[in-house]
C-alpha cells in the first residue's frame, strides 16, 4: 500500500471508530461515560495495531505497553467520569494505579541498568503521582466548556505532543501515536459543531491525557526527550483545568475557551519551537 495512504489510514480509521462510539454514546446517555473512555482507548489501541502490529502479552518491550495501556486505562477513564459524589473513587483509583503503570514502563530500564534503582523509583513516583493529578485536573475541563471546545483543546495537546516527540525525542512512532490520538480527539470538533449537545466526556479526556503522558514518559525514558519538556506538557494539560477553577468560572464563556487556548499555544508552541530549533541546528539533513 502507498506510504502516505497507509499513514492516513493509521490516523483516520481509529478516529472514525472513536467517532462512531461517541455518536452511540450521545444516543445512550447512561452509557456515555464509559463509551467516551472506550472511544479513545480503543481508538489508540487500533492506532498502535495498525502502526506496529499486535504486541505480545506480556510485553518484553516497554513500547508494547502503549497498546495494552490504551485498553487497560479505559476503566480508569470511566471512573474519572462517574457521578461527582463518587469522584473520590477516581482520585484514589488513579493515585493507586498510576505508579504501577510506570513500574511496568520503567522497570526494564532498571533491569538493563540504564537507570539505577533509586533513580528509577524516583521517576516512577514523579510520573505516577504527577500524571494522576494532571488527569484529574484535566477531566474537569468538560464541565465548563462546549463539547467541541474541549475536543479542540485536547486535540491541540496532541499536536504539541507530536511535534515535541518528533523533534525533541526524535521518535517518529511516538510522534505519530500522539498525533493520531490528537486526531481521535479532533474528530470531536466537527461532531460538536453539528450536534450542539455533544460532550466529549470526562472519561475520554482522562484516557487521552493518560496516554499522552505515557508517550511523553516513554520519549523521556527511552528516547532523547529532555526533562524540561515534561514541564511544558504538564502546563499544557493544566491549562485544560483553568475553566473549572474559581477564577475560570468567573470568566465569560468565550474567555473560558480562549484563555486555555492561548496558554497551550504559547507553552506548547514554545516547546515545539525550541525542539525544532535544536533539531535543525544539528543540520544533518535527516528527515526520516
Amino acid at each position, binding site marked *: 500500500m502507498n506510504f502516505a495512504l497507509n499513514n492516513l489510514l493509521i490516523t483516520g480509521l481509529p478516529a472514525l471508530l472513536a467517532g462512531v462510539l461517541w455518536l452511540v454514546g450521545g444516543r445512550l446517555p447512561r452509557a456515555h461515560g464509559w463509551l467516551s473512555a472506550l472511544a479513545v482507548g480503543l481508538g489508540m489501541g487500533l492506532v498502535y495495531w495498525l502502526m506496529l502490529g499486535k504486541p505480545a502479552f506480556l510485553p518484553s518491550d516497554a513500547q508494547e505497553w502503549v497498546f495494552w495501556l490504551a485498553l487497560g486505562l479505559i476503566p480508569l477513564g470511566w471512573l474519572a467520569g462517574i457521578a461527582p459524589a463518587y469522584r473520590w473513587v477516581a482520585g484514589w483509583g488513579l493515585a493507586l494505579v498510576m505508579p504501577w503503570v510506570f513500574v511496568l514502563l520503567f522497570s526494564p530500564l532498571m533491569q*538493563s541498568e540504564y537507570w539505577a534503582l533509586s533513580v528509577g523509583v524516583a521517576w516512577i513516583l514523579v510520573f505516577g503521582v504527577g500524571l494522576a493529578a494532571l488527569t484529574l485536573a484535566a477531566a474537569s475541563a468538560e464541565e465548563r466548556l462546549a463539547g467541541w471546545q474541549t475536543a479542540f483543546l485536547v486535540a491541540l495537546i496532541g499536536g504539541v505532543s507530536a511535534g515535541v516527540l518528533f523533534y525533541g525525542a526524535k*521518535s517518529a512512532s511516538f510522534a505519530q501515536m500522539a498525533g493520531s490520538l490528537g486526531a481521535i480527539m479532533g474528530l470531536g470538533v466537527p461532531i460538536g459543531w453539528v450536534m450542539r449537545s455533544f460532550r466529549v466526556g470526562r472519561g475520554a479526556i482522562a484516557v487521552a491525557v493518560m496516554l499522552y503522558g505515557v508517550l511523553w514518559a516513554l520519549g523521556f525514558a527511552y528516547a532523547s526527550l529532555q526533562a524540561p519538556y515534561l514541564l511544558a506538557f504538564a502546563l499544557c494539560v493544566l491549562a485544560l483545568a483553568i475553566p473549572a477553577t474559581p477564577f475560570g468560572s468567573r470568566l465569560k464563556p468565550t474567555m473560558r475557551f480562549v484563555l486555555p487556548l492561548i496558554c497551550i499555544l504559547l507553552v506548547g508552541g514554545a516547546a515545539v519551537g525550541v525542539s525544532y530549533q535544536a533539531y535543525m541546528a544539528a543540520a544533518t539533513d535527516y528527515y526520516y
Partner: protein
Amino acid sequence: MKQFATHGMMGLAVLAMLSSTLTPFYAQGVTYRVDPVHSSILFRVKHMNTAYVYGRFNQFSGMLVVDEKNPERSSVQFEIDLNSVDTGNSQRDDHLRNPDFFNTRQFPKATFKSTRVRKINDTTVEVQGNLTLRGVTKPLTIRVTFTGKGRNPRGQEIIGYETTFTIKRSEFGINYGLNGGLSDEVRVTISVEAIRQ
C-alpha cells in the same frame, strides 16, 4: 582441621596436575578473540522502496573456537554494542537507537551464539545459532567462508572469516516503518579477523 586443610591442598594440587596433563586431549579447538579494529559489521536496508542505505556497528566483541579437523566442534559467540550504530548521520543514528528501532536503553546488546557448525567444503561452514536482538531470540543459520590465515605485525596468529545473511527485522519486533518506509529485510555482512589466544 590442619590435617584436613593439608589434604585439601594436596587434592587441589593433584587435580591441577591432572587437568594440565589432560587438557591437550580434550581442547582440540583453538580459541580466537575477534579483533574489532580489523573486523566489520555492515548492514544495508532499503529506504522508501528506492535505494539502499548502509550502516555499521563500531563496537563489538566475539570469540571463535576453531577446530580444523572436526569443524562441528567449532563454535562462535558474538556481542554487538547497538549504541555504536553508525550510518554516517548522527540524527539517523539517534533515531536508530531509540524505540522506533533498536531501543538501546532497554536492549543495549545484540548477541549471536552458535549451537551447531557443519562443514560444507574446505572453505565454507554452515553455522546454526541463536540471534538475540531487541529481546527476541530467533534461530539463524549462516554460511561462513574462510578468508585467510597469517600473522599480524605483532607476530600473533590471525584468522579471517566472512559471512553475509539476511534477517527480517519484523521477526525481532522492529516494526516501525514497514509500510514502505524501510524494508523488512536487512542484509548483514560480517567480516572478522580474530587473534589466537
